[in-house]
């Protein structure tokens, strides 16, 4: 098995954001750092963020900083990654990508404890940087310039200190004195050692680093910020701790200023307010910080200074420090950036990223808290009340984020003909259920009914320099309707157009005259004096097709003659040449013709494409003077062409365009060929079935970029994206188009006008995402959820028969499980299982969020997602805050006579999840008596689906306790060994004995409780335990998949176990396990022997039971009953490292009749697909192409691609399609070198790559 991995949707979580001028001096730009990729964004004049460049670095980004050399105009980008190297990048504006300037190795690769990369700090004057590890190591690099103004980097200077944990590193602003870096550190030894702020001075003269000074700070300090120094500010450091922020001056004689961090009214002082991110704004004479807390509250930290001129030098001293509450963002920010033009970019932790504008920088009435000079009574908490709406900020734009993506279901739920992805994303109050569909969506701007069925529609501008279209011409069988576009669209009669004929073509010429081609002739309307020239074809002949550009016009007569006109110097249309296309005059189909549009610098196009409507060919004729209307190339078709289109496609203004010929046929197939712009030779022909109707092709412009529309029973949109990939994506609109034309007006700058039957629709793209970014293939519909989505299950999965018998409701119903810890809802919970939030509170909580509760206080809800009504309804809610709903399962019990549908809900009582919390009391650390530990209890509640005419609801049946709370006295034995950590292990094991997963198996319920697997049947008063395996997996079962008599269990740590249920013995027998550990998060069954597993560390593996093992199991008379360990082991079929936590994997039949594809999603919002390779030829081509690509495009930050994809396990049988697709971005010379090695042609490679890329674009199989 060989798989081809492609990213469909890029990760949307942004962890780092830095601003600066990267592409040009004074440009205002942002670099966004995602887990494995970099993106450069620039806001346009309207404040919309546009992506300039996206680069996958094939490595993990751990820190990102921009710096600028003194006197330079552009910024460099500094990346700390997992490659064990420091990378300095510069943006190359001619190729539009980041390029390496320097890459310096300092350690091993990987995110290790003592290998620097985690922290990065730069000197504000750009003279040096410090790169630090979590423990021990720190390096300082000195930047300089050589004679030709190039950046140079020194060899590293060590500033190591072993057995010290580093919490944060910053570069202090000291003007042009020796650069100083400050670090927040703590020693391992002694255990009670305090945190200290350590200053490292880089002596530029002696070229070494000294650990200059260390001052103790609060024990709960976690973040330090540099304060602008020299002339602009007092300099020094701000230390953030849980309760307050402290300003520390570099001058030792000055006292500290302390300002409490204001708290929301419902937050306890002990918990404090945690500052998650901050942004510094600095301009002449003004600087301030924005601090964002973990609840999303934004504070402005103002510092007022006085200038002291007593000494020789002018020094700046802090006079007053204030914290002012600005606004509350919907969720905390991972990073924030204040741009120079007054915009604020917020990379949200969950929910959409925001781009804000400042309305004011804090008003008088906003809450404000002033710092005091250190004294005893600074511990008093300060409370503030939040703004319900944004008052000082204004939201300009949102960038959609799918992060964190927790669960999904894929299928054609809406019966649209192609599958949709329903995903659960976001967290807490920003949780959302989104329906993702492939392609783009058009929204209706206006629809109007027409008197008849139009045969064509055209738009035309009045003058070349106009930005908006002036006329819309709707053509009927024997008349034309002329509409003028102004503030409103209305019919006009004085436009100069003929209205009593059927219009075939309309074009604005370069001299601002307009030509209207109709069946009876050509009407040439001069702009200045409203004179009209008419050209009439010979007697008894009609014009059947026409096309033109700003200076040329071609028409086809009913005698199958092609006439070529040009605009001469006097502004008149003159006939240049004519040619007979075919001898046959009668034909069933109309001919079609297309002439290439003019690109800048061209006065005439050189080619015209014609199909005569009779033969199965499309021909390309030359329009050059010397060989006018000579045929140059020919394309054979399967049937007569219905439409032709010549189009120049370009990725962006900097890249060169390519001329493409598109041919649509009456059978619904379209063929694409590249046209050589000099010779006119056709190459790289590709054909696709796009629909069941004759294909209509149209050229439109969107955001100034040429796009081809392919219209059939489905419509597509073809363009070259910023990564130079030719993309074809479906367009979603509920009606079928007959004719389409591009339309551009003030209200609708990137629109189209479409004829659907007898109505005329004006449509526009509603997307705010960047249209031309590759790997943004989906658009979404959002429904708000209550809490963080955890699980999504299909009610009908329980059995093949449909859930409800009533025929009105064809649509499915999905059940969602949402759960959150630390939400304070105890007082609001009601017994009837209703959501505790009312609709008005609903609105409020979307803004401010839930009150924070303690660990172990849960809010869980099960909602019904009705696909037909597009609604979410809370069906079940936990009634006590200590109840945690961990899993749900729909099942039809085999021993139930009515075979009604049951819902089993796994509930855990007294469960707190806080593994990362270092202060969590544990028996090991605190030597606490074991009976003070509270152990969880698990139960299954069973509900029956009541489907009567008057009510449809889940009716409560009974509760079964599946796991009693562990008895603390059982823990006593461990003290026998005298080792406290042993009892800790035992305690944590019992604490993990909770219900984690349920599944339906042969009409019975499988329940996973910690490590044990149990089988239950339905009883009258409770579930009846049939059998169990006490230790089915070593640690904790995370999911169950079943297939006939086999049960696949994934363990939280030890990969997958395969069990067989032996009905005769009523036992679960272990058949197979895995050699390697895997921290499984999700699993999906591929076939009877095979599973795909996604794990916490980002690997996707495919495990298969060896074929001989299958037969052995069948033949074994004991059935493996007596073997202690698993008799067989899974074979690793494929393995691939994706780069971030895998949250779901699914096998999907994307295209009817095609092989199923493996879809996966990562927690940070990326969606990818693994496509099985088709042939042995592909299996030879792609590995060698990948090998070549590794050589020609090595990862940007110095990680080795093969090593990166083999991060935890060696990559096996998976081709990295994302890397292969970068083939398009290589220049021609390199491409040729590669294909020479591969013994293929460039066209071959392009076609192969496209083949796989387009596998998910079309609902039809390739022809």
């Amino acid at each position, binding site marked *: 098995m060989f798989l081809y991995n492609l990213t469909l949707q890029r990760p949307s*979580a942004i962890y780092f954001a830095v601003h600066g001028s990267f592409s040009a001096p004074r440009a205002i730009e942002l670099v966004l750092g995602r887990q494995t990729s970099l993106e450069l964004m620039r806001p346009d004049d309207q404040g919309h963020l546009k992506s300039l460049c996206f680069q996958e670095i094939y490595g993990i980004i751990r820190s990102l900083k921009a710096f600028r050399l003194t006197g330079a105009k552009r910024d460099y980008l500094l990346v700390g990654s997992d490659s064990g190297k420091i990378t300095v990048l510069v943006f190359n504006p001619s190729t539009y990508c980041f390029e390496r300037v320097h890459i310096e190795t300092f350690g091993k690769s990987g995110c290790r*404890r003592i290998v620097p990369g985690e922290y990065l700090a730069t000197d504000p004057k750009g003279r040096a940087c410090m790169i630090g590890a979590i423990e021990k190591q720190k390096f300082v690099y000195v930047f300089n310039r050589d004679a030709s103004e190039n950046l140079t980097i020194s060899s590293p200077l060590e500033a190591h200190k072993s057995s010290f944990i580093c919490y944060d590193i910053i570069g202090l602003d000291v003007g042009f004195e020796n650069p100083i870096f400050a670090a927040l550190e703590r020693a391992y030894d002694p255990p009670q050692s305090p945190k200290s702020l350590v200053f490292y001075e880089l002596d530029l003269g002696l070229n070494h680093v000294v650990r200059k000074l260390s001052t103790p700070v609060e024990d709960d300090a976690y973040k330090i910020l540099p304060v602008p120094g020299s002339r602009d500010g007092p300099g020094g450091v701000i230390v953030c701790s849980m309760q307050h922020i402290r300003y520390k001056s570099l001058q030792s004689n000055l006292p500290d200023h302390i300002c409490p961090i204001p708290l929301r009214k419902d937050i306890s002082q002990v918990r404090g307010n945690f500052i998650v991110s901050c942004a510094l704004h600095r301009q002449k004479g003004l600087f301030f910080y924005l601090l964002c807390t973990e609840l999303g509250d934004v504070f402005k930290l103002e510092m007022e200074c006085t200038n002291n001129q007593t000494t020789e030098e002018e020094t700046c001293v802090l006079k007053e420090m204030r914290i002012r509450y600005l606004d509350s963002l919907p969720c905390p920010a991972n990073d924030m950036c204040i741009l120079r033009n007054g915009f604020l970019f917020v990379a949200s932790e969950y929910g959409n990223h925001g781009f804000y504008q400042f309305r004011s920088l804090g008003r008088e009435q906003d809450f404000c808290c002033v710092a005091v000079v250190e004294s005893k009574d600074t511990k008093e908490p300060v409370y503030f009340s939040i703004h319900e709406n944004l008052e000082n900020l204004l939201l300009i734009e949102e960038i959609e984020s799918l992060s964190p993506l927790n669960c999904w279901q894929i299928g054609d739920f809406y019966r649209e003909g192609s599958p949709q992805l329903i995903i659960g994303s976001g967290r807490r109050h920003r949780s959302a259920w989104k329906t993702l569909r492939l392609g783009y969506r058009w929204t209706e701007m206006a629809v109007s009914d027409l008197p008849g069925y139009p045969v064509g529609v055209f738009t035309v501008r009045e003058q070349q320099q106009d930005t908006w279209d002036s006329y819309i011409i709707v053509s009927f069988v024997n008349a034309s309707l002329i509409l003028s576009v102004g503030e409103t669209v209305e019919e006009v009669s004085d436009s100069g157009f003929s209205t009593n004929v059927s219009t075939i073509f309309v074009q604005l010429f370069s001299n601002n005259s307009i030509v209207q081609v109709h069946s009876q002739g050509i009407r040439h309307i001069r702009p200045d004096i409203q004179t009209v020239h008419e050209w009439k074809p010979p007697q008894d002949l009609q014009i059947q097709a026409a096309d033109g550009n700003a200076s040329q016009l071609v028409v086809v007569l009913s005698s199958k003659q092609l006439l070529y006109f040009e605009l001469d110097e006097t502004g008149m249309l003159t006939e240049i040449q004519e040619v007979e296309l075919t001898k046959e005059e009668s034909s069933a189909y109309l001919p079609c013709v297309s002439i290439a549009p003019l690109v800048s610098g061209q006065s005439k196009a050189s080619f015209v494409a014609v199909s005569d409507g009779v033969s199965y060919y499309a021909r390309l004729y030359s329009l050059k003077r010397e060989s006018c209307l000579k045929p140059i190339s020919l394309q054979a078709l399967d049937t007569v062409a219905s439409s032709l289109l010549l189009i120049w496609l370009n990725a962006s203004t900097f890249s060169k365009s390519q001329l493409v010929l598109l041919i649509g046929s009456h059978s619904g197939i379209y063929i694409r060929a590249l046209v050589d712009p000099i010779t006119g030779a056709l190459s790289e022909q590709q054909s696709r079935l796009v629909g069941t109707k004759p294909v209509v092709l149209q050229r439109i412009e969107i955001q100034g970029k040429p796009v081809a529309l392919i219209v059939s029973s489905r419509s597509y949109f073809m363009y070259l994206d910023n990564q130079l990939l030719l993309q074809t994506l479906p367009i979603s609109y509920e009606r079928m188009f007959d004719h389409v034309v591009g339309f551009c007006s003030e209200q609708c700058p990137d629109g189209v006008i479409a004829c659907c039957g007898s109505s005329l629709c004006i449509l526009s793209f509603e997307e705010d995402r960047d249209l031309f970014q590759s790997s943004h293939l989906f658009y979404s519909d959002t429904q708000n959820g209550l809490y963080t989505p955890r699980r999504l299950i299909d009610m009908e999965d329980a059995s093949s028969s449909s859930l409800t018998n009533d025929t009105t409701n064809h649509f499915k119903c999905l059940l969602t499980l949402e759960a959150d810890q630390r939400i304070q809802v105890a007082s609001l919970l009601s017994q009837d299982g209703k959501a505790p939030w009312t609709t008005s509170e609903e609105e409020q909580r979307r803004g401010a969020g839930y009150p924070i509760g303690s660990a172990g206080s849960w809010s869980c809800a099960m909602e019904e997602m009705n696909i037909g009504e597009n609604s979410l309804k809370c069906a079940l809610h936990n009634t006590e805050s200590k109840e945690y709903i961990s899993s749900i399962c729909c099942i039809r019990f085999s021993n139930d006579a009515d075979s009604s549908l049951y819902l089993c809900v796994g509930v855990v009582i007294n469960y707190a999840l806080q593994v990362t919390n270092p202060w969590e009391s544990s028996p090991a650390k605190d030597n606490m008596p074991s009976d003070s530990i509270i152990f969880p209890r698990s139960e299954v509640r069973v509900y029956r689906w009541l489907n009567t005419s008057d009510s449809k609801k889940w009716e409560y049946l009974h509760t079964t306790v599946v796991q009693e709370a562990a008895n603390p006295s059982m823990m006593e034995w461990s003290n026998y060994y005298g080792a406290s950590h042993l009892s800790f292990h035992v305690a944590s094991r019992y604490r993990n004995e909770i219900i984690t997963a349920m599944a339906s198996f042969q009409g019975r319920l499988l329940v996973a409780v910690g490590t044990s697997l149990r089988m239950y049947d339905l009883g009258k008063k409770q579930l009846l335990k049939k059998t169990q395996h006490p230790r089915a997996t070593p640690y904790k079962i995370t999911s169950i998949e079943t297939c006939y008599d086999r049960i696949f269990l994934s363990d939280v740590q030890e990969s997958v176990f395969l069990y067989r249920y032996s009905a005769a013995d009523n036992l679960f027998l272990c058949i197979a396990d895995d050699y390697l550990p895997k921290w499984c998060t999700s699993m999906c069954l591929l076939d009877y022997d095979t599973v795909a597993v996604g794990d916490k560390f980002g690997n996707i593996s495919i495990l298969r039971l060896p074929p001989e093992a299958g037969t052995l199991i069948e033949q074994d008379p004991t059935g493996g009953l007596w073997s202690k360990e698993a008799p067989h082991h899974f074979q690793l079929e494929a393995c691939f490292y994706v780069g971030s936590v895998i949250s779901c994997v699914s096998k999907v039949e994307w295209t009817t009749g095609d092989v199923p594809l493996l879809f996966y999603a990562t927690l940070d919002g990326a969606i990818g697909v693994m496509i099985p390779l088709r042939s042995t030829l592909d299996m030879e081509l792609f590995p060698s192409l990948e090998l070549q690509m590794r050589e020609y495009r090595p990862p940007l930050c110095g990680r080795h691609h093969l090593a990166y994809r083999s991060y935890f396990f060696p990559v096996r049988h998976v081709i990295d399609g994302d890397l292969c697709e970068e083939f398009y971005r290589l220049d021609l010379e390199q491409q040729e070198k590669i294909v020479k090695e591969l013994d293929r042609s460039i066209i071959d490679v392009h076609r192969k790559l496209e083949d796989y890329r387009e596998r998910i674009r079309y609902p039809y199989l390739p022809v």
Partner: protein
Amino acid sequence: MATNPQQNLYSQLEHLQSKYVGTGHPDISRHDWCTNMARDSIATYLGHASLVDLFASVEGESRGRIRYHLLEKLHSPYGESKERVLSKKERLTQL
């Protein structure tokens, strides 16, 4: 050059121990080994931003706080060592 090869080897090992933090040795105590393992794991979690995201999503905290918790946990992930606890007890008994 050290004359005793045994001594040389020993000093080399010692050098490696100090250079590569977390390298074990034959006489490592269970507590030390666990602490080193946990510290290495925590460092990996901190390095991969999406793992912190996962913890944050599971525990219902913000990413910032989870990062802080992990960094704090780095100090003594397995509590104080047994010897230290014992010596503390001894001291208490002496008092």
